[in-house]
């Protein structure tokens, strides 16, 4: 069965001889590294892992619906008109759905960015892509305010109530579209900037790219803060979520717009998952394996930007999901994006819903809750530092 022996080779005896001397050393190394060994992707492994993650998502979702300030009883939830039903269907469900959408989009976008930038520390938030989206959304709102006397402005100013978003009557779905698009343009501009910075293929220190992202984040935050001083206090309050993300109080109509964009985007990413493997090996490898590099990369970047635009315009800046989730999953599942990408989407959804649940439950005695963006940053930022340090020490060796 072993192909080794099936090939006639005149030099084989000498070769075997050499190998036999070499074997003990190799075996020792193998023993040392067995913990890192992994099986390649099979349809069975693929289905099993994704099914398991699906179960995790469902479990988190059920908890998120049932737990909260007011404990609900399952029987009452199903009775329409009851208070429990109203709480679950009217408050917790939209929040959960938004969390799953945003988390899934961020997880998938993170895994994709890591592959196309060939940088395991890439993340839409760390790279400033989310910041660019927030900046785009802010500018759109201000432009709408300035235009509020015109007919176009009338439609768009409806959009600024979306930012406040306190009431479910905040407006029809069409009001979510311009802000989402403005955020997507901001995200796209930033991603292009980062790709341009990373351009000298492979020769740039991967950490320099992250530094550029952090600097851009600071810039975007500064511009948003600056713009906040120019508007009325109500509008200033409305712009706050774009600095720290939150999933609370979004009307179904706006969530639906986000859902359409995110689900279409996820479909595109999953369909291109195997190309991410090749892109992560560099342009030359990807091209010689049959990938149209420039076109594929542009398509992916546009799709990610649309997804980030949609999530940021709904939930604001939620950081580190795209970093933490693919990273953890890669440790367990390996780097094959055909599995890693859908897994990161499911994992991101579960992770963000879980963080939001933690945020809701943590301060019940005090009667307040922190924004979910603070929770993800609390988990993600220290992990980022650990990974950064580990990456540097590996390079130094």
């Amino acid at each position: 069965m072993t192909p080794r022996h099936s090939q006639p080779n005149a030099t084989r005896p000498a070769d075997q001889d050499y190998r036999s001397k070499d074997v003990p050393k190799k075996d020792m190394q193998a023993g040392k590294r067995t913990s890192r060994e992994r099986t390649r992707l099979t349809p069975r492994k693929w289905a099993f892992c994704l099914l398991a993650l699906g179960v995790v998502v469902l479990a988190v979702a059920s908890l998120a619906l049932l737990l909260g300030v007011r404990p609900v009883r399952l029987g009452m939830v199903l009775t329409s008109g009851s208070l429990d039903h109203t709480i679950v269907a009217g408050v917790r469900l939209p929040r959960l759905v938004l969390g799953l959408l945003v988390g899934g989009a961020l997880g998938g976008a993170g895994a994709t960015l890591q592959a196309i930038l060939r940088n395991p520390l890439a993340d839409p938030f760390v790279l400033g892509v989310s910041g660019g989206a927030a900046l785009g959304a802010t500018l759109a709102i201000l432009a709408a305010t300035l235009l509020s006397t015109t007919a176009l402005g009338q439609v768009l100013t409806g959009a600024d109530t979306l930012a406040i978003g306190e009431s479910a009557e905040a407006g029809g779905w069409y009001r979510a579209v311009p802000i989402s698009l403005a955020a997507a343009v901001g995200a796209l501009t930033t991603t292009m900037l980062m790709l341009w910075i990373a351009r000298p293929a492979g020769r740039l220190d991967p950490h320099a790219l992250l530094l550029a992202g952090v600097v851009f984040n600071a810039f975007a935050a500064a511009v948003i803060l600056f713009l906040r001083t120019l508007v009325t206090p109500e509008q200033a309050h409305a712009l706050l979520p774009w600095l720290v993300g939150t999933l609370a109080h979004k009307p179904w109509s706006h969530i639906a717009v986000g859902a359409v964009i995110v689900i279409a985007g996820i479909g595109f990413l999953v369909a291109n998952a195997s190309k991410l493997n090749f892109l992560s090996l560099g342009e030359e490898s990807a091209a010689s394996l049959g990938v149209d590099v420039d076109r594929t990369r542009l398509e992916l970047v546009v799709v990610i930007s649309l997804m980030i635009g949609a999530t940021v315009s709904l939930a604001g800046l939620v950081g580190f999901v795209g970093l933490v989730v693919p990273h953890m999953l890669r440790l367990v599942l390996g780097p094959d994006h055909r599995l890693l990408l859908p897994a990161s989407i499911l994992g991101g959804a579960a992770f963000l819903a879980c963080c939001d649940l933690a945020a809701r439950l943590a301060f019940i005695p005090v009667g307040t809750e922190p924004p979910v963006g603070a929770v993800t940053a609390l988990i993600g930022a220290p992990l980022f530092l650990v990974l950064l340090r580990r990456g540097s020490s590996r390079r130094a060796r």
Partner: protein
Amino acid sequence: MREGTEAAPVEKPRGAPGETVLELREVCFRWTRGGDLVLDTVSAAIAGGEMVGIVGPNGAGKSTLLRVCAGLLTADEGECLVSGRSLASWSRKELARKTALVPQDLSVPFSFTVEELALMGRAPHLGRLGLEGAGDIALVREILSEMDLEDLATRPVDRLSGGERQRAFIARALAQDPRILLCDEPTAHLDLRHRRRLFEALRKRVEERGIAVLVVLHDLNLAASTCDRLLLLNEGAIAAEGPPLSVLRPDVLEEVYQTPLVAGTEPETGRPYVLG
């Protein structure tokens, strides 16, 4: 001294060259508009069933030439034909079924295993779902053992030594089962034993399946002992072309490399040698 011999002894005489699979017609390339010519009116034809070496001093344009052949760079003037069709008319996927590249850049940012990396070579041949079948896996196993990698199959590539990693990339290119194999300094990190195994593997494919191999090499002696034909590049232009004996002449080499050297013919094998 078992390991002391040079790479695979070349069997002579060689089979008659097949039809031309790769042709360069007066190819010129510059990095920037109006900049210096990196490739200066290069014309060459490579046939199936031959192994052609590209040699020349640093900065002569060897890797650039290989990248133009791989379709990674587009010639500013002239054209490159694969199987008689202009490179521009090939889709990337079609081209990937026909040609494979062993790149110079061997960096892998994620922990793909050797087997996973080699299996990626099957990608251009897979169906829409991109799943490897039993045949693909068997082929890759065979190639891994050919490259002496079977013990390393489940190891992450990013934890391997330079030579092991280079062999993994060679395995990927072989798994592509190309008609034209382009190698950019494939022996840069290899020890003598693996260098020999590589050229055995290449020679086997050249002889048995009639593939064309175009390989950038630094070591003139290695080029002399392994290649059927050499292209000597100097400052982007072809300075000499032909069988090793006619290219590796002291007068030609001294002018191209601008250094005094000794060249001659090994009395036992009749192969040319060069001492710098």
